[in-house]
């Protein structure tokens, strides 16, 4: 089976500060992977490199054997940790735009999710609250039938009720051929859906293992294991 994401000797510096320190990681299709780690461990940097928004200082990242570019953007759906949607557009216009640009975009699914989360289709993005904008962004991301979903803190800015809906949406969009890589601090919420866990620290992958294995070996939940490993 061809890996969907491969990182080999991946380094990324921001000036003198090293954010990624030789990351080696391989992910295969059909998994929900939790990317966990303390602040500054390199999670967002890794996701942005895979999305093609940053260039590596050294090493390479491949998406289905291809370097991030036009081809990979058509198969990767990325949810950033900030709202990047044009403020002058409304959800209806954004759905139309996404449908035009992405062949794998499911407009009907997007409208259904908007209705379920009670997001007004005609309201401009800039008139919506931050949390609602994040919901719209997530809906647009999950409405694509992508091969790889990169979600950077998808549930950090939403209310607890919406979190459950979002996690259920991720699960319901999960297909055997798709991979979902979720970066989050809210491990307890994510624990019920992840198959695999990648723990990062100081720009390196500290552990990459099946969630069930971690629970079996440590005798505790992923959340408790994380707190133990990263205790201050």
């Amino acid at each position, binding site marked *: 089976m061809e890996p969907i994401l491969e990182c080999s000797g991946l380094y990324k510096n*921001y*000036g003198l500060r090293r954010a990624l320190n030789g990351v080696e990681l391989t992910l295969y299709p059909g998994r929900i992977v939790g990317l966990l780690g303390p602040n500054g461990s390199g999670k967002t940097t890794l996701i*942005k490199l895979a*999305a*093609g*928004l*940053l*260039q590596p200082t050294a090493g390479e990242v491949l998406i289905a054997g291809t370097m991030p*570019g*036009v*081809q990979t*953007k*058509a198969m990767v759906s*990325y949810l*950033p940790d*900030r*709202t*990047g*949607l*044009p403020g*002058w557009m409304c959800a209806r216009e954004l759905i139309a*735009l996404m449908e*035009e*640009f*992405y062949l794998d975009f499911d407009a009907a699914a997007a409208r259904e999710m908007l209705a379920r989360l009670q997001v007004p289709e005609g309201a401009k993005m800039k008139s919506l609250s931050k949390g609602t904008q994040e919901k719209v962004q997530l809906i647009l991301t999950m409405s694509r039938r992508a091969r790889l979903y990169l979600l950077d803190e998808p549930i950090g800015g939403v209310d607890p009720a919406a979190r459950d809906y979002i996690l259920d949406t991720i699960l319901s969009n999960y297909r055997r051929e798709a991979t979902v890589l979720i970066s989050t601090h809210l491990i307890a919420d994510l624990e019920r859906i992840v198959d695999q866990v990648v723990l990062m620290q100081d720009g390196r992958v500290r552990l990459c293992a099946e969630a069930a294995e971690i629970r079996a070996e440590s005798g505790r939940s992923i959340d408790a294991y994380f707190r133990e490993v990263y205790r201050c």
Partner: protein
Amino acid sequence: MLTKLLKYELKAAGRQILPLCVVMPAWSAIARLLGLVHVSLPWPQVEQLLGGLLVTGCALVLFGGSCAAVVFLVMRYYRGFYGDEGYFVHLLPASASELLGAKLLAALVWQLCTGISMTLSLAILSAGTGIWEGLWEVLGFVWKNAADLLAPISLTSLLVELLLLIPLSAVSGLLLIYAAISLGQRMRENRILGAIAAYIVLNLAVSTVAGAVNAVVGSILFALSDFSPELSLIVSVGAYVLLAAAECAGAFFFCRWSLAKKLELA
């Protein structure tokens, strides 16, 4: 993909520039109408002052409107590629050339619209004053003299070169700003200051190269002018056209390289 991107860019920039294109001629029309209304006041100085204020106000609106249009277009480049909107734009399955091309074409279209709006505003302001008739007379006189002095083929060549030079100058002006912004992004801090400094440096560099080219062309022209003054004129304008084209190509490739290979979206 370029067509789709162009549609998006035209709409994005249009929401700010279209109102300006409407306000400028509308304001000129109001000023012209007010100017035609003669209100007799016991103080003629006040009447003159009001008339002067009207004209000044109009000039300020036109000047401000055209400056604002340029600022909006420059901000569109910055925000669209390096601001939060970059998280949307750079994820679209489009190449750096397509993204840049769409932004540039949309900017040129809106610059053209702004130019037409300003010309219309000036035409409205000066309607019935005889200025335009005088201008047409002067242009006709220049054309007649040029046609008498130059052979038809030379006149045509010169016209073609001038018609090429106008859009090329507009494109190179915009691309120089884009290149400066892209250069400014290479700095870790004070990126806007960096962009301003880069713009100054780029302009100096372009002026230096233009000066060197002019020196070379000047010596060729000097040699040609004895044989054919017409050819020397065509070569002179042609050199400016080539220089503008080279500026455009250089700035475009630099911006494309920056977006494709050096993107660092914070």
